[in-house]
C-alpha cells in the first residue's frame, strides 16, 4: 500500500482544473473568440463613447439633417441632425445594458423557482411547473406592454418587464439540471453523510448545473437585445432622448429609400451583436460540455 505504487500514478498530463480546461477549449473556437472580442470591443467603445466621438447622441443640428456619411459625420445624420455614429455608440450602451441586466432578473426569478421545483419534486414541482407552463403560454410582447403600462416608461422598468417574461426558460432548464444531478451517486453520498436539502442544493446541485445555465444566459442576451430593439421600434421601448438602435431604425424607416444608411447601420449593429453572443454561446456550450473532453 506504499506510496511507491502511486509514483506510477496520477497522469503525466498537465494539471488543469475543470474551468481551465473549458477555457482552453473555448480559446480554440475561433468563432466564439471572434464573438467575444467583438462584444468586448463594442462594450469598450460604448463606455468610452465620449472619447471617440465629439457629438452627443441628442445634439440636434437642424442645419445638417439627413446628410450622407462624410468626413464630418462618419455615418451621416438623421432627420433631426443628430450624428448617426454617435447615436450608434450610445445606443450600444442601451442594448448591452438591457441584454445583460435583464439576466439579473431572469436568474433572480428563474433560478430559485427551478431549483426548488427540481429538488423538491412531487407536488411542489407539479405546482411550480404548471405555473411556468402558464407563463410560457402568455404572448411575451403583450405581457411586456401590460407591465410597462402599469409601471411606466423608464429603462429600469424595461429591464424588469423583459426579465419578467424571459425567466421561464431558465426555470425549466434549472429544474431539469437539478433533477438529473440529483440522481447522481455523489448526491446520494452527501445524503448518506447527513447532508440536508439546502446544503445539497447549494454545494452540489447548483455548481454542477452551472454549465448549461451559463450557456442559456449567454443565448438569452441576444434575445433581450432584440426584444428591446423591437419594442423601441414600435415605440414602447426606451423613451427618447435615450438612444436605441430600435428607435433609430423606426426613425429611419420613413426615409429608407433616400437615406438607407439610417436603417442599415443600426440593423447591422443589432445583427452583429446578436451573432457575436450566439457564437460565444455556442462556443461556451461546447467548451463546458463534459462529454466532449477528449
Amino acid at each position, binding site marked *: *500500500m*506504499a*506510496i511507491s*505504487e*502511486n509514483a506510477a*500514478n*496520477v*497522469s503525466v498530463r498537465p*494539471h488543469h*482544473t*475543470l474551468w481551465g480546461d473549458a477555457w482552453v477549449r473555448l480559446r480554440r473556437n475561433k468563432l466564439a473568440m471572434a464573438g467575444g472580442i467583438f462584444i468586448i470591443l463594442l462594450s469598450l467603445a460604448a463606455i468610452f463613447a465620449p472619447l471617440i466621438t465629439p457629438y452627443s447622441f441628442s445634439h440636434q443640428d437642424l442645419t445638417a439633417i439627413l446628410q450622407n456619411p462624410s468626413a464630418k459625420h462618419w455615418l451621416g445624420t438623421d432627420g433631426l441632425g443628430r450624428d448617426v455614429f454617435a447615436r450608434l455608440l450610445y445606443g450600444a450602451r442601451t442594448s448591452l445594458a438591457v441584454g445583460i441586466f435583464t439576466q439579473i432578473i431572469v436568474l433572480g426569478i428563474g433560478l430559485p423557482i427551478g431549483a426548488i421545483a427540481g429538488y423538491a419534486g412531487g407536488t411542489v414541482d407539479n405546482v411550480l411547473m404548471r405555473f411556468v407552463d402558464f407563463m410560457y403560454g402568455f404572448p411575451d410582447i403583450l405581457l411586456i406592454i401590460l407591465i410597462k403600462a402599469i409601471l411606466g416608461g423608464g429603462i429600469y422598468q424595461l429591464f424588469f418587464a423583459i426579465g419578467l417574461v424571459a425567466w421561464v426558460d431558465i426555470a425549466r432548464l434549472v429544474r431539469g439540471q437539478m433533477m438529473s444531478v440529483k440522481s*447522481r*451517486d*455523489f448526491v*446520494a*453520498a*452527501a*445524503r*448518506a*453523510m*447527513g*447532508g*440536508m436539502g439546502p*446544503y445539497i442544493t447549494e454545494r*452540489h446541485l447548483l*455548481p*454542477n448545473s452551472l454549465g448549461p445555465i451559463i450557456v442559456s444566459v449567454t443565448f438569452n442576451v441576444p434575445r433581450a437585445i432584440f426584444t428591446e430593439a423591437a419594442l423601441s421600434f414600435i415605440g414602447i421601448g426606451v423613451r427618447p432622448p435615450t438612444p436605441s438602435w430600435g428607435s433609430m431604425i423606426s426613425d429611419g424607416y420613413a426615409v429608407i429609400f433616400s437615406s438607407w444608411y439610417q436603417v442599415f447601420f443600426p440593423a447591422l449593429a443589432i445583427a452583429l451583436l446578436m451573432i457575436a453572443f450566439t457564437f460565444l454561446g455556442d462556443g461556451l456550450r461546447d467548451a463546458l460540455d*463534459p462529454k466532449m*473532453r477528449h
Partner: protein
Amino acid sequence: MAEIVIEVNNLAKYFPVTQGLFHQKKIADVKAVDGVSFTIHKGETLGLVGESGCGKTTLGKCILQLIRPTSGEVIFESRDLCELSDKELVPVREKLQIIFQDPYDSLDPRFTAMDIIGEPLRIHKISKGKEYNDRVSELLNLVGLAPYMAERYPHEFSGGQRQRLGIARALALQPQFIMCDEPISALDVSIQAQIINLLDDLQQKFGVAYLFISHDLSVVRHLSDRVVVMYLGKVMEISNRDELYKNPLHPYTQALLSAVPIPDPAVEMKREVIVLQGEVPSPMNPPTGCVFHPRCYRAFADCSKIVPLLADAGGGHQVTCLLYKTSWP
C-alpha cells in the same frame, strides 16, 4: 459471536406502478425487496450476493434509509431507523456510511480530493483548521494516496484511486458500519485486488462492519464472514462463508457457484456447468410459490404452490427451499 450492530427484520420495499391520465391509480407493485431478515455483527463482513433485479442494492439503500422501506425494521443502537425522521437520522449517519460502485459518479467533479474526504467532517461540524487538515491528511495516507494529491480533482485520478477517495470519505467519521455497494466491479482486475486488500486492512484496523454487496462470488468468498444469497427480492440462503461454498444447499446457490468460471483450463475442461434456463422474471409479476421454481432444475409439483420459509438447516445455515423439510410453512 460478537455483538449485533444491525438487525434487519422483514424489510420490504415495494415500488408502486401507476396508470391513469389524471389520477394515478396503482395497478401493481414492483416487489424489489420482499421480506428480508438478517443480522450483521460488529467487525464482520456480511456478503450479499445476487444478480441484477434481486434487490440487493435497494436493500442496502433501505438499510441506510436513503430509500425509505415500505415495511419492516432496521434496528441500530436499539432504535428502529425506519421510524426516525431525516433530521433525527443526521447524528446516526455519522456511524453508517456507504461506498459506491461507480468511482466516476460517486465523487463531485467540482470538489478537490480534500473537499471530498473532508465533507463528512464539515457537515457534522467536526474539527476546523489544523485539526481538519490533519485528519484529511491522515485519511489520505490510510488509503494509500500521497498528500500532494489533496488539491487534485477527481478527473485527474484513475478509477482505483477514486475508489480510494470514496473509502477515505466513508472512514472520515469513524463509522461502525459501511455498506459497500459493488465497490470493485467497475475496476480493472489488477486494481481490484489492491482495493480488496485495503478494505480488509481497514476492517482489521478499525473493527468496522461491512455489508459487501457484489455479484462476484469469488471476491465475496475472500472478504466475507457470512453470506446472504438473494433472488427476486427474497433471501434464498444464509450461511457461514466456508459452509456456503463447500456445501451450498439452495439450487440457485449451486447454479450461481457453478456458473463462475475458474481461471484454470485444466479444471475447466473437466467441469460441468449448471446452465439455468430462462431469464430472471419481472419483479412486477413474480412466480407463484417459490420465486425460483420456473428456473429450478430440482423443482417439483409443490414448488409452484407453496412459498417456502427461511429456516434453519443446522449450524447457522439457513435456506428457503422446499427440498429441506424445515422450510415448509
